[in-house]
C-alpha cells in the first residue's frame, strides 16, 4: 500500500463555496474541529461567479414584501415540485442570513435611506435581490471566507476527495489526494458535509467553471444516498454566444432586472407573444411595451415586463424563436439595455460592461448583446431532510446546489445565493449536532486499498482512452439530446452514448506523474460526470410530462399526477436505478399562503 497522511475532524466539509463555508462557520462556532476541503484555491469556488443578487424579503424598497410572498413565488417558479418545508425554512431564514452577512462585513449597495438596496428579478413579485452591482457572488464568498478563516478551521486547498468511506451504514470519512503534490490523504470524521455544487460541465455550453463535475453528488450516490429531481437542469436564458470561445459565459439576469429587452432578428420583442405566457402567470405581467416602459420608473403602479418571467419560460421562448428561423446571425437573440443610458449601465452592471467590452468586443451601453441559453444550475441533487440537511445515509449531510428539494422544477434567480446561506448553516448545525453524539470510527484497511487502486489505475496504463476526449464526447451527447427540448428518442440515444462512454472510461489512461497533473485529475472526474449524466437522462426518461426545466416535446403538458411525485435515482449494484417517491404534502398553513396569491 502507498503511504498517506491522516487527518481527524469532528466534521469534514467537502467544498468551499458559499454553502461549505457557511457550514464550516457553524461547525466552528459549535466549538468542534472542522476540516474544509476544496479542489481550487480558497475563494475561487463557483459562488464567485454569481452576479445578480441574493433573494431575501427584507422589504427595503417600500413594497409590501415578506417571507410569505417569497415562499409563494418560489413554489410557483418551481412549478410546484418544491419540498414545501424546505421553502418555508428558506423564505423565513433568508432574511436573517443576509443581515448576518452584513455583520460579517459584506457591503451591499444601498437605498437612499441607507438600507440594503434590492433589485427586481425573474419570478419575484417584488424587488428582492440584495446585491453589489453585478458581483454579488464575489462579495458573498469573500465575506464567508474571511469569517470562516477567523474561526480557525483547517483548510485543505487544491485537494480532491474521490471516495466517501462508510462503516456500519454511516459515513465516517473520505479518501482523496493533494492535487499539488499528488500525496494521498485519509480524512476521518464523525460527520461529513457535501457542498460541492453542481455539474454543468457535462454540457458543451455552460456558465460553469471546470470544478462543476458533480463529484460530491456522485460520491454520495456511491455511498448509498438517494438523488432526486436529477432531470431538472436549469438552462439560463442568457449566455454569451459570440465570439465562439466565449460561448456559454453567463450574462446576468440583472440585465433584464435593470430593464434589458429581448428582441429577435426581426426586431420583435417576442416575450410579449401571448403563446409564451404560462397560465399561472397570466395577468401578472405588462401586456404592452408602453406599460413595460412605465414600470422602469414606477414599479408600484405598473406590471413588470415579460422578460422577467422565470428562467425556464424565457429559455424556451428564445429556443423557439431561433428554431422558428427568427434568430440572429450566430443563432441567438438580442438583449439590449442601452436605452438605460451609459452611466446607469456602467454603475449597475459594471462586470457585464467590462466582460462584453474586453471579451466580446461589444459596448453594451450602445449596442445589443447576442445571447442564447446556457447550462447554468442543477435543481436536482442529493435528497436531504429539510431541517438538518442529512441525506438518506447516516452521518452524511448536503447543502447548496448539490442538494435537491428547494427549487423544485425551476430555480428563481437570486434564490441560490440565499440557499447556500440558509442551508449551509442548517447543514453545519445538523452535522455538528450529529458529530457531538457520535465517535470517530476505525476505517477498514480494505476501504483504503480500494480507494488507492481507483486513484492509481489511470496512471498505470500505458495506453488507453484520453479523459479529455471522453469528456468532450459526453458534452456533445448531453448538449444534443438532454438539453432544453427532450424526447424519448433523443434521451434513449443519449443513454446509449453514455453507456458506451462508461465502458471506454474503464480503460482511461494518462501520462505523467502525480504532481499537479491535470490529465490525471480529469481521468478521475470523468467517472462522476458519467454517473450523474446517466442519472439525468434516466430521470428525464422517467418523467413523462413537461414541468419547469423539463420540457418533453413528446409529453408537452404539465400532468397533475406527476406534480405529486419526485423522481429518485439510486445506485444498485453499480447500476443507476430510477423510481418515484411522493412529494411531501403541503401543510394547511402553507396552503393558505398559496391561496392568498389567488385573491
Amino acid at each position, binding site marked *: 500500500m502507498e503511504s498517506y497522511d491522516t487527518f481527524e475532524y469532528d466534521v469534514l466539509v467537502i467544498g468551499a463555496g458559499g454553502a461549505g463555508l457557511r457550514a464550516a462557520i457553524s461547525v466552528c462556532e459549535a466549538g468542534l474541529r472542522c476540516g474544509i476541503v476544496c479542489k481550487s484555491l480558497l475563494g475561487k469556488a463557483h459562488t464567485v461567479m454569481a452576479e445578480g443578487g441574493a433573494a431575501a424579503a427584507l422589504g*427595503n424598497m417600500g413594497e409590501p414584501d415578506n417571507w410569505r410572498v417569497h415562499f409563494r413565488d418560489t413554489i410557483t417558479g418551481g412549478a410546484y415540485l418544491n419540498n414545501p418545508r424546505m421553502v418555508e425554512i428558506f423564505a423565513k431564514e433568508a432574511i436573517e442570513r443576509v*443581515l448576518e452577512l452584513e455583520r460579517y462585513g459584506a457591503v451591499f449597495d*444601498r437605498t437612499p435611506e441607507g438600507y440594503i438596496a434590492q433589485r427586481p428579478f425573474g419570478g419575484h413579485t417584488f424587488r428582492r435581490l440584495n446585491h453589489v452591482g453585478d458581483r454579488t457572488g464575489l462579495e458573498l464568498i469573500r465575506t464567508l471566507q474571511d469569517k470562516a478563516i477567523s474561526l480557525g478551521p483547517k483548510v485543505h486547498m487544491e485537494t480532491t476527495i474521490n471516495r466517501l468511506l462508510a462503516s456500519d451504514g454511516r459515513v465516517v470519512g473520505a479518501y482523496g489526494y493533494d492535487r499539488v503534490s499528488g500525496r494521498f490523504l485519509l480524512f476521518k470524521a464523525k460527520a461529513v458535509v457535501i457542498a460541492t455544487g453542481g455539474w454543468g460541465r457535462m454540457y458543451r455550453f455552460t456558465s460553469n467553471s471546470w470544478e462543476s463535475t458533480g463529484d460530491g453528488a456522485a460520491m454520495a450516490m456511491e455511498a448509498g444516498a438517494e438523488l432526486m429531481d436529477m432531470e431538472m437542469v436549469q438552462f439560463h436564458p442568457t449566455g454569451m454566444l459570440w465570439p465562439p470561445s466565449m460561448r456559454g459565459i453567463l450574462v446576468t439576469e440583472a440585465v433584464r432586472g435593470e430593464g434589458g429587452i429581448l428582441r429577435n432578428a426581426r426586431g420583435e420583442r417576442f416575450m410579449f407573444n401571448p403563446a409564451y405566457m404560462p397560465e399561472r402567470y397570466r395577468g401578472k405581467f405588462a401586456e404592452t411595451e408602453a406599460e413595460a416602459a412605465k414600470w422602469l420608473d414606477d414599479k408600484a403602479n405598473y406590471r413588470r415586463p415579460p422578460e422577467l418571467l422565470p428562467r425556464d419560460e424565457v429559455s424556451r421562448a428564445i429556443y423557439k424563436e431561433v428554431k422558428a428561423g427568427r434568430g440572429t446571425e450566430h443563432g441567438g437573440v438580442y438583449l439590449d439595455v442601452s436605452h438605460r443610458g451609459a452611466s446607469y449601465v456602467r454603475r449597475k452592471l459594471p462586470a457585464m460592461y467590462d466582460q462584453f467590452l474586453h471579451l466580446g468586443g461589444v459596448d453594451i451601453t450602445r449596442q445589443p448583446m447576442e445571447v442564447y441559453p446556457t447550462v447554468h444550475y442543477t435543481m436536482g441533487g442529493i435528497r436531504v431532510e429539510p431541517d438538518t440537511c442529512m441525506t438518506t445515509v447516516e452521518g452524511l449531510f448536503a447543502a447548496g446546489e448539490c442538494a435537491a428539494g428547494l427549487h423544485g422544477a425551476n430555480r428563481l434567480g437570486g434564490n441560490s445565493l440565499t440557499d447556500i446561506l440558509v442551508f449551509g448553516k442548517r447543514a453545519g448545525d445538523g452535522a455538528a449536532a450529529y458529530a457531538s453524539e457520535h465517535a470517530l470510527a476505525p476505517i477498514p484497511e480494505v476501504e483504503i486499498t480500494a480507494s488507492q487502486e481507483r486513484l492509481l489505475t489511470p496512471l498505470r496504463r500505458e495506453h488507453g482512452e484520453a479523459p*479529455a476526449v471522453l469528456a468532450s464526447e459526453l458534452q456533445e451527447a448531453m448538449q444534443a439530446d438532454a438539453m432544453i427540448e427532450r424526447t424519448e428518442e433523443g434521451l434513449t440515444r443519449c443513454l446509449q452514448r453514455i453507456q458506451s462512454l462508461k465502458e471506454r472510461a474503464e480503460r482511461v489512461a494518462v501520462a505523467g506523474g502525480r504532481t499537479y497533473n491535470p490529465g490525471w485529475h480529469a481521468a478521475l472526474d470523468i467517472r462522476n460526470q458519467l454517473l450523474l449524466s446517466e442519472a439525468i437522462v434516466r430521470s428525464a426518461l422517467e418523467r413523462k410530462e413537461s414541468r419547469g426545466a423539463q420540457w418533453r416535446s413528446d409529453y408537452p403538458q404539465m400532468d397533475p399526477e406527476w406534480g405529486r411525485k419526485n423522481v429518485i435515482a439510486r445506485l444498485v449494484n453499480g447500476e443507476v436505478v430510477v423510481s418515484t417517491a411522493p412529494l411531501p404534502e403541503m401543510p394547511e398553513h402553507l396552503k393558505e399562503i398559496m391561496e392568498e396569491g389567488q385573491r
Partner: protein
Amino acid sequence: MSGTVRLRIFRGDASGGEEREYTITPTPGMVVLDAVRIVQEQMDSTLAVRWNCKAAKCGSCAAEINGHPRLMCKTRIEDVCGRDGVITVHPIKTFPLIRDLVTDVSWNYERAAHIAPLQCRDTGEQPRMRQEDVARVQEFRKCIECFLCQSVCHVLRDHGRKDGYYGPRFMVKVAALDMHPLDERPRREFLKTEAGVGFCNITRCCQDVCPEEIRITDNAIIPLKERVADEYYDPLRTLLKRLRKSR
C-alpha cells in the same frame, strides 16, 4: 491576425525548465487561456495550469504573457500576438514555482489569516450606511485575489521582503476594513508594525496591473500611510498623548 499562433510556454519545476513551443489555430475572440487549454487537452495533458471561471471573476489564471503580468482569461490572442505569431507564457515570478504555470501562493493565505475580521455591533436593527460612504470600500472589495499586484510589488519581488510587508493585496484588504463605516477595530498599529505599510514606496506598479482597475496605491495605500502618520507622527497628537500620560 492570420494563420497559426506559436505559444511558447514555460515547462518545468523548481529544479529548472525551458520554453516549449506549441502551434495552435485560433478562432475569433480567443483568449490566451483558451489556447493554453487547447494545448493541455489536445497536445499534452500534463501541462499544469490553474484556472477556474474563464470569465475574469475568480483570479486564478495569472501569468506573465510576453513578460507582462496579466490574467490569461482576459487577454485576447490578437492583442498580444506579434507579427512573428509568437506568444510567451510564463508563471508569475514572486512566488515559488510548483510546476509549469502553477506557483505556490500559500504565503498570501497565511497573511490573510492574520487580518482580523470586521468588528461591529449587532444592534438588532438593519444598519444604515450611505452609498457615498460605502463606495470606496466597494472599490476595494472588487479584488479577485489574482495576486498580480503581489507579483509586481518591488518590496516582495525584487527585495524579497515577505517578512516585513504584506503587499498591496492586503493593504487593499485592510483599507476595506479600516474605511468600513461599521468597523470598530483599531488597525493602525497592525498596519505600521505587522503589515508594514511603510515599506511601500509608491511606485504604483500594483495599480497598473490590477485587472479590476482598483486604484490600489492612490485610494488604499496612500490614505493608509496618512492614517498611520496621523496616529504616530503627528506632533500635536504626540504632545496630547504625552500630556495625558503625565496627568
